[in-house]
């Protein structure tokens, strides 16, 4: 049972995620998460403001149910399928780089110094999480998909648009990691 509770290697998890692409097709839907951000807008009444959000919610139900499942899956994994207080086997280079940002506690799954409400309500926290979140939502809908819809599902379907988007994702991530995040976090 030990292998269930320890982290699963990439060569197990990657193929399992890849299998979700044909699984969702067989179930009559497709693998992709970011459309749900628009569904959420629509559910809270954005259709009254703009026709863009007058969506066919029935058609979007499979993807919404998938995301509800993802939340449940996260709960199951965190509470019943992992050991408490485990640390990620980050490379020593990564630990050095992250600590040079002023994030010293590299134990656990997420940085405790950043993933807390006090940090969120600081200027830096607002920039990192609120502005960052805004960019995620705006960018992914402008690009027509996110890592799941473009980089996994779109590339699995050999879509050129998805390749361009994935290259864009990476350029943005590199700019953010090497310029913006150090600017925000470094004391």
């Amino acid at each position, binding site marked *: 049972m030990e292998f269930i509770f320890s982290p699963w290697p*990439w060569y197990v*998890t990657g*193929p399992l*995620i*890849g299998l*979700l*692409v*044909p*699984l969702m*097709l067989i179930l*009559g839907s*497709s693998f992709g*998460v*970011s459309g749900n951000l628009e569904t*959420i*807008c629509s559910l809270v009444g954005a259709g009254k*403001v*703009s026709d*863009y959000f007058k969506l066919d919610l029935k058609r979007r139900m499979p993807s919404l149910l998938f995301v509800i*499942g*993802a*939340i*449940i*899956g*996260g*709960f*199951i*994994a*965190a509470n019943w399928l*992992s050991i408490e207080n485990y640390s*990620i086997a*980050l*490379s020593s280079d990564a630990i050095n780089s992250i600590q040079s940002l002023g994030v010293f506690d590299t134990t656990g*799954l*997420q*940085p405790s110094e950043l*993933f807390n409400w006090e940090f*969120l309500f600081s200027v830096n926290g607002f920039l990192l999480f*609120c502005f*960052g*979140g805004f*960019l*995620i*939502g*705006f960018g*992914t*809908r*402008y690009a027509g998909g996110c*890592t799941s819809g473009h980089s996994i599902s*779109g590339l699995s*379907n050999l*879509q050129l*648009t*998805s390749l*361009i988007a994935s290259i864009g994702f990476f*350029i*943005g*991530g590199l700019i*953010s990691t090497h310029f913006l995040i150090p600017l*925000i976090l470094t004391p």
Partner: protein
Amino acid sequence: MKNILYVFSGVIFGIVMFKSEAISWFRIQEMFRFQAFHMYGIMGSAVVVGASFVAVLRRLGMNSITGEPMKFSEKKKLYKSPLIGGVIFGLGWAMTGACPGPLFVNVGAGYSVMLVVIGFAALGAFVHGLIAHRLPR
């Protein structure tokens, strides 16, 4: 019945994303600094497996369980919007350490601050919807 299967697929996704550590801010930093193979292994092997099964499904030409043809991803051939939108998304991806899927998995795993990130992501999607007709495609 179908609805249970969609939720079930999501549960699998959530568990696998958690257990792969792909929902970790640390892992995203490590990836964008080219300091480990881990994330590249996950995404690369996911695409290889996904593409192989999609190729087989296309050849078989069967219908989905709803009786309709399968919804193979046919993205509109665009150049500007995936690139510009992609870069904007990438900036936020590295900042929060999560793309949309992991945002939801993180909430389930108990990282409640991610709810605020989801809120702002929905706001971003909303603003995009308002000005979508004016943006270059």
